[in-house]
């Protein structure tokens, strides 16, 4: 069976993929459908959904178009989720690989370091980091990456530990390949599938984290994001439910889709496990 056929066998994953593609299309089309900045006031404030033509989702406290914010926010959420996951991988993969490959004291030290980061409450650490570095896209991405790399390091370490004494690794050693070459060219390619699955779930968590940071007022003040929209509407929730409702649904759908896709990737990349599970 081909990779996609195995993926599509999981109906939830197919559903997730469709939602995710829809959101990506939304993000790409945002500047075409709403060429104006989503921060611009375009109508009277507190316009309920579907009351005036062209304002399907109404306007917010400042008369800004909610639909425009939603579409522009899609780009921000997806980008922050993706980039912060990549940065987390860049921290977690090398640490885990070195710890798992060498073992011994190096492993002990690196794992204590990882445990330290796992003990600190994630969200509190992210808040403190962004607050001290001042809110910006860079500080948000860095903070999310710093709180999310430990699971990557643990996973990669476990994979390396189980692979480091395989025949092909011994063979590479006999041929005289250096440790660095063995780590990067021999073992790492064989650990990719669990890393890909974990990464897709991490993008989902990163999007949730970003929205929570924006919600408490730590979003980049220059970009419109879903979390900011909900946070800004928090105090007027009694008068205008729609201001928080739609961005929340957008976050929910994106995170749900990424989780479903992650499960599908898991099935497609580990066909044996998937058969045992069902």
């Amino acid at each position, binding site marked *: 069976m081909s990779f996609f056929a195995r993926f599509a066998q999981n109906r939830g994953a197919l559903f997730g993929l469709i939602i995710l593609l829809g959101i990506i299309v939304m993000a790409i089309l945002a500047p075409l459908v709403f060429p104006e900045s989503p921060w611009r006031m375009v109508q009277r404030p507190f316009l309920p959904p579907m009351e005036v033509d062209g304002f399907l989702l109404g306007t917010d406290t400042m008369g800004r178009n909610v639909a425009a914010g939603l579409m522009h926010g899609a780009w921000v959420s997806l980008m922050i989720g993706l980039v912060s996951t990549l940065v987390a991988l860049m921290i977690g993969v090398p640490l885990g690989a070195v710890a798992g490959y060498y073992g011994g004291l190096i492993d002990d030290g690196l794992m204590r370091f990882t445990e330290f980061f796992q003990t600190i409450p994630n969200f509190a650490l992210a808040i403190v*980091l962004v*607050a001290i570095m001042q809110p910006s896209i860079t500080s948000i991405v860095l903070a999310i990456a710093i709180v999310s790399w430990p699971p990557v390091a643990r996973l990669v370490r476990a994979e390396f530990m189980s692979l480091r004494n395989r025949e092909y690794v011994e063979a590479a050693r006999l041929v005289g390949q250096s440790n660095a070459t063995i780590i990067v060219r021999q073992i790492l390619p064989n650990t990719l599938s669990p890393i890909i699955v974990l990464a897709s779930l991490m993008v989902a968590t990163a999007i*949730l984290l970003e929205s929570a940071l924006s919600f408490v007022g730590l979003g980049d003040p220059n970009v419109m994001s879903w979390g900011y929209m909900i946070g800004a509407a928090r105090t007027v929730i009694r008068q205008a439910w729609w201001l928080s409702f739609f961005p929340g649904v957008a*976050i929910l759908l994106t995170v749900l889709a990424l989780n479903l896709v992650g499960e599908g990737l898991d099935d497609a990349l580990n066909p044996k496990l998937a058969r045992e599970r069902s």
Partner: protein
Amino acid sequence: MLYLRLITMRLLKAVVVLFMIIIFNFVLIQLAPGDPAAILAGEAGATDEEFLRQLRERFGLDQPMYVQLWRYVSGIAMLDFGFSYRQGVPVLDLILARLPATLLLTGTAFVLSLALGIVAGSLAAARVKKPSGSIIMTLALLFYATPLFWVALMSVVLFSVYLDLLPAYGMYTVGAGHTGLALVLDVGKHLILPATTLALFFMAIYTRMTRASMLEASQQDFVKTARAKGLKNSVIQRRHILRNALLPIITLAGLQAGQMVGGAILTETVFAWPGIGRLMFEALQQRDYNLLLGIFFFSAALVIVFNIITDLVYGLADPRIKEGS
């Protein structure tokens, strides 16, 4: 004896981690843009030069770095977290006043989510190929993907604004002057929405964990033996599978403690629950960095205490650890 040594080791490790967090806090203050004195005073912008000079002297910021670090560490060791210049009160007083509310909220949410999660997860494991099992898992995935603060806001809209059933803000009715049982009931009523919304996300996690753990335990030989003996399925599920599946759940529940504290920041913000999460939000809005770092240290300490309790419970639940065989 081994159990005692295990606890001593855990306590020692906790002290090391707390020490590292203190150093981490210190580094953060140094890394922050602007004058550390200005940051400690909660003023990111320009301030009275004379005031800053006094602050620098008072905090010893004119001293070499290692002296500053020593002062900072020894200060916290004596529970001196500095002063909140915004509120005009020592940071420790502010935190201690808010701690009970957070413990009540997170404690309730923890028990609620663990109990409901284990029940839902074992139901889903017992009905693994039936529609009812899939429905439970779909709901769990849905709760897992929903932003916590959004569920909180939407429950305010639904239960408080439209249905007018539950209070949406605060911990008790202001000015009602309840005492005794009336006060307990009043707080309980205010606790329902924050605790439930905080619990939903964690319930989803525990449901998934319980199901996976039970399915794994059901593969083992003793389950086949029990079936061969002709025991009823419900008895096998409850007494053989669930009991063996519980240990990994306890471990993972302990690891979730940090997330619970993070979730409390969001729920307390929405419901104006007077705990340290809400205090953190207020500190953020006022750029009160001294208070912010104090709360950060406390939340990490809370997680460590919680982890130690989990270890103790784990030792009680698994006699093999206690006897050390």
